[in-house]
């Protein structure tokens, strides 16, 4: 196991056995942050610590967590309905970090939520969990029940007068539920359609009450920041950003998996050192650095730190930090068809460009793969990538996310697209 001071998120995680219970969690350093915050810090002091830690959201957008919390109305929890929601929907293809955190140490999320709840003075906590995470559900429910039984959740925690409890909601399964406002719509029992961004959820969210939605990994950092302080957390990162990050690599590498590493770990180290490099007989062509909705990064550009700003310099986006590798024996056009099938299927259907545009894109890619595509189809794809890819043309970020791999792929794999025209279909004959 890793040490708590260097690899805080995974220090207590051993996937070979059951996760720590409340006592084991406490013995290994858990609950210190809760004692410290509830007994010696004001809610605003907790927010200030998180702000100074420079923690940014791990759900994909990288929004500064302290800033998000500071915009919540300050009424005490006892005076006003307010929600703290953990976004555990995790349906971004390529991504499995939140599952590891929840299966491996569910109490770390419970404590993170408790502290976040205290900071924003939330009256209710909710975990929005994707429906297919059966094991995580079982372990979270067990952890919540035990924590409640021992007084870490519920009324008057540690005799401080602060009350907070957590409900576990299991989703019916749709990618768009991970979009923070669609998630709130889903929690209200409706079809999960996103909402307008004003007023922000922090002012008017679930049932019109102030609501903060944070990613699981974001929340799992909180107890460590409160316990060890913002300066310690800042020092964990090697580049511009603070903290550690759960990175992952999947595809044809020797050791696909996940690793908690300093924020800013070079992409090349992830692939060559941690994932053991490509399998023999395969070479790296390109990769999606942070899940399906991030742009392709060329194999020549992997000497770059995996932090929010650096990866943008090579056209990528950090996203979830879980990389998907394209090897030289897999067809990039086929891969794009697979990706766009996913995005077309998972569109919520609310706004026309996305609802009708994404299936169109999928059909164009189908035609190219099947050998019936034309030069004009490639033009059409570029047009879609341009139009749907501009933020503001669609109601939420789903369509721009869908266009990220397409736009970058069209530029990077132009020869492959052309080969699908001249060769009448996929030259690699990769299975659909």
């Amino acid at each position: 196991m890793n040490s708590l001071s260097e690899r805080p998120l995974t220090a207590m995680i051993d996937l070979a056995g059951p996760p720590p219970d409340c006592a084991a969690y406490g013995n290994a350093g858990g609950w210190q942050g809760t004692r410290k915050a509830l007994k010696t810090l004001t809610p605003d002091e907790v927010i200030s610590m998180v702000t100074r830690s420079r923690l940014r959201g791990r759900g994909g957008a990288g929004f500064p967590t302290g800033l998000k919390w500071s915009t919540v109305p300050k009424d005490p929890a006892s005076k006003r309905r307010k929600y703290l929601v953990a976004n555990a929907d995790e349906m971004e293809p390529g991504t499995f970090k939140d599952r590891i955190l929840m299966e491996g140490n569910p109490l770390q999320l419970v404590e993170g939520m408790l502290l976040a709840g205290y900071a924003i003075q939330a009256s209710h906590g909710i975990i929005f969990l994707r429906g297919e995470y059966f094991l995580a559900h079982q372990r979270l429910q067990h952890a919540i029940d035990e924590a409640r039984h021992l007084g870490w959740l519920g009324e008057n925690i540690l005799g401080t007068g602060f009350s907070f409890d957590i409900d576990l909601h299991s989703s019916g399964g749709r990618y768009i539920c991970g979009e923070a406002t669609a998630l709130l719509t889903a929690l209200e029992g409706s079809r999960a359609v996103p909402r307008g961004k004003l007023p922000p959820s922090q002012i008017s969210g679930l049932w019109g009450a102030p609501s903060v939605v944070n990613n699981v990994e974001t929340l799992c950092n909180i107890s460590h920041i409160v316990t060890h302080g913002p300066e310690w957390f800042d020092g964990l990162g090697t580049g511009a950003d603070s903290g550690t990050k759960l990175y992952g690599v999947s595809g044809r590498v020797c050791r696909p998996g996940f690793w908690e590493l300093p924020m800013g770990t070079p992409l090349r180290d992830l692939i060559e050192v941690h994932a053991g490099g490509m399998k023999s007989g395969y070479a790296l062509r390109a990769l999606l650095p942070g899940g399906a909705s991030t742009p392709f990064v060329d194999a020549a550009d992997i000497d770059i730190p995996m932090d929010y700003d650096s990866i943008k310099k090579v056209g990528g986006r950090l996203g979830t930090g879980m990389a998907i590798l394209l090897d030289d024996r897999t067809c990039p056009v086929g891969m794009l068809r697979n990706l766009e099938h996913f995005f077309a299927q998972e569109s919520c259907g609310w706004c026309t460009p996305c609802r009708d545009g994404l299936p169109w894109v999928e059909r164009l890619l189908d035609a190219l793969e099947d050998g019936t595509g034309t030069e004009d189809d490639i033009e059409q794809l570029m047009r879609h990538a341009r139009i749907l890819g501009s933020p503001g043309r669609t109601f939420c970020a789903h369509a721009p996310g869908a266009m990220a791999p397409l736009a970058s792929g069209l530029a990077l794999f132009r020869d492959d697209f052309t080969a699908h025209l001249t060769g009448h279909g996929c030259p690699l004959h990769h299975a659909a």
Partner: protein
Amino acid sequence: MSTADLPLPDDLRQEILTLAGSEHRPRAASVSALRLVQARFRWISDRHLAEVAQLLNMSTADLDGVATYFNLLFRKPVGQHVFMICDSVCCWIMGCKDLSDHLCKKLNIRPGETTPDGAITLLPIVCLGHCDRAPVMLFDETVHEDVDTAALDRLIAEAQETPR
């Protein structure tokens, strides 16, 4: 008459009402309530949908909008066991199409269909969050990683031997 045409059992009605009562508004329990019904009957029939709608103070159409929206809620009967093969990108790279083809051939059905004996339904599913161990599938509520055709054959045998 099949059980799906009979009224919801009293204990399930009570469970749904309790759930609805614990929420800020009853409709917040819509997905959870439908999942409870499905856990008992494997799918959500028109009759059950209408009953749940009434318990949650929603119109049937409103609740059907919710039921048809989500990937994991079934508005048509499914077999005793459900094979869900991940068809998202990492599993695609690692050959999930071969798995689905193998199942189709062995069971003589297409994705979305159920075997005539009612034992197995085959469905595609999006990324299951085990991408480092692709290809991945869900057999009822259990995840299987690094799946190959031999593993599929074992699961078919298991499904045919253990009715639910």
